[in-house]
């Protein structure tokens, strides 16, 4: 049970730290009460990073769900041939994030990148993906979508569990594909939909690697504010500025926000999620 001690101890320590001004550079710590939280509210970069992260989550999660579900439905249709495509779709998921970031860093280059070259070929002037503040988050969304197959596989498993009789009955009743989707498919896979939404949301709030690798890796050049994700700012406070107390306070705020959002999702979910089909 050492595992519990490790995690619970870490949580308690994190809680205590949040109320201290512990700084690694000076090595001093003293109790400062809620001062960290007050500073946190005042720090415009905290608000900015939280806003960026929220914006990203709102953009990324629905798109990831839609693309993953779309691919899963395509795969569910082809039956036997699905295996090879499932494998192909899964390859990006196996690609280490660092490699993904390195590839997209070059693909998304504003002037020479392959994506903008492709767009130019069809007469569209592509944006400066990694420079224009408005396009930074869509760039990261694109990377997430590329590796969306984990979500897809969960949807695929759920789709396969939908009893075929339901579709046969619907066909007899003359229901069109759209009605079948909204009235049969979606309710039947709602547990998977619910699970994926929660997991993807929690992941989106902790986005770190992509943003750090693309914008904060090179400390000699300033990164655009639009790329400052919450987890990146937390990392900077902890391991660049060594404000561990402040970072711990930030971590707790993140935890509470994630808990609140998850709780809301669970409440909404309980109203719509249909668990009957599983038994």
């Amino acid at each position, binding site marked *: *049970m*050492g*595992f*519990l001690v490790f*995690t*619970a*101890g870490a*949580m308690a*320590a*994190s809680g205590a*730290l949040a109320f201290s001004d512990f700084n690694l550079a000076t090595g001093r710590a003293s109790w400062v009460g809620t001062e960290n939280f007050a500073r946190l509210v005042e720090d415009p970069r905290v608000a900015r990073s939280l806003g960026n992260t929220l914006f990203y989550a709102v953009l990324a999660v629905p798109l990831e769900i839609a693309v993953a579900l779309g*691919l899963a439905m395509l795969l569910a*249709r*082809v*039956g036997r041939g699905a295996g090879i495509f499932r*494998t192909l*779709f*899964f*390859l*990006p998921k*196996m690609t*280490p994030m*660092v*490699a*993904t970031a*390195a*590839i997209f860093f070059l*693909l998304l280059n504003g002037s*020479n*990148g392959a994506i903008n070259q492709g767009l130019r070929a069809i007469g569209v002037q592509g944006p400066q993906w990694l420079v224009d503040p408005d396009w930074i988050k869509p760039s990261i969304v694109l990377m997430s979508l*590329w590796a969306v197959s*984990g979500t897809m*596989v*969960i949807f*695929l*498993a759920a789709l396969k*569990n939908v009893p075929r009789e339901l579709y046969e009955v619907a066909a007899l009743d003359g229901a*069109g*594909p759209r009605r079948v989707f909204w009235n049969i498919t979606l309710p039947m896979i709602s*547990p998977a939909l619910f*699970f*994926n939404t929660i997991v993807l949301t929690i992941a989106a*709030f*902790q986005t*770190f*690697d992509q943003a*750090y*690798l693309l914008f904060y*890796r*090179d400390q000699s*050049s300033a990164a655009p504010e639009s790329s400052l994700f919450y*987890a990146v700012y937390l*990392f900077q406070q*902890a*391991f660049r500025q060594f404000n*561990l107390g402040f970072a711990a306070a930030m*971590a707790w705020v*993140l*935890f509470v926000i994630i*808990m609140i959002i998850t709780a809301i999702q669970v409440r909404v979910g309980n109203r719509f999620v249909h668990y009957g089909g599983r038994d």
Partner: protein
Amino acid sequence: MDVKYSTGRIGRIVTWVLLIACSLAFLYPLAWLVAASLKGRGQVFDNALVPTEVHWDNFATVFTELPLLSWLGNSLAIAVLAAVAVAVSSSMVAFGFAYFRFRGRNALFGLVLATMMLPGAVTMVPVYLIWRELGLLGTWAPLWAANLFGSAFYIFLQRQFFLGLPRELFEAARIDGAGYWRLFTRIAMPLAVPSFVIVLLFEFQASWNNFQSALIYLNSESVEDFTAPLGIAYAMTRYSPTAGGQGDYQYVMVASLLITLPMLALFAFGQRYFVEGVATTGTKG
């Protein structure tokens, strides 16, 4: 197992066309990566999928340009340690939860599961301080040793499997005089090989890909000691023209390809486990 809607011939053609188009889109970045890894300086941005001149020598030069061999070795050693540590310890904890009936078991198990909800960011700082107290910053220990205490998700996965084993099997062995350790090693584990493999594969992948921990814990001065992901991040900066490099991105691409290939091989070997494992988290979670 195909789910049939109103699939006429046209519907089927549309489905196949869409699938092939999507596959090409998903494969393109990987194809581009392979091509880029074979190009000369400055040709990476010609974006041709077939390099005009093929530089096989990149795959040799990269090892003198960058300490890639030592990065890959470090990553491999850490990933093996991490995977074995977490698989063994989680199995033991999971067996405890599955076999023994004791007061407060469910509450304790709930607590274990609750830690899955905990964002890594919350424990990042205090865990760092623990390793600092232990004087192990800059060593490999922070990158794998915590796995000796198990991990909630894997404990859950293994416990589900153990619960599926018929209890009579254990009762019979008990009557034959087997101790708990024997129950675990001789009966539970041999039967739990499939889920054990899932845990090994998942954790190997997680560790191999882990960038953030390496960034936090490894000494940024000693480049030789980096793991492969940290090394590639370092190389990206080193060759970047804005940081005074020459834009030799082909080496970054070779390195990226070389850390991706083992994952693809792992997937080829364990596809069944990966897909099943991921699907299980969704349907039973």
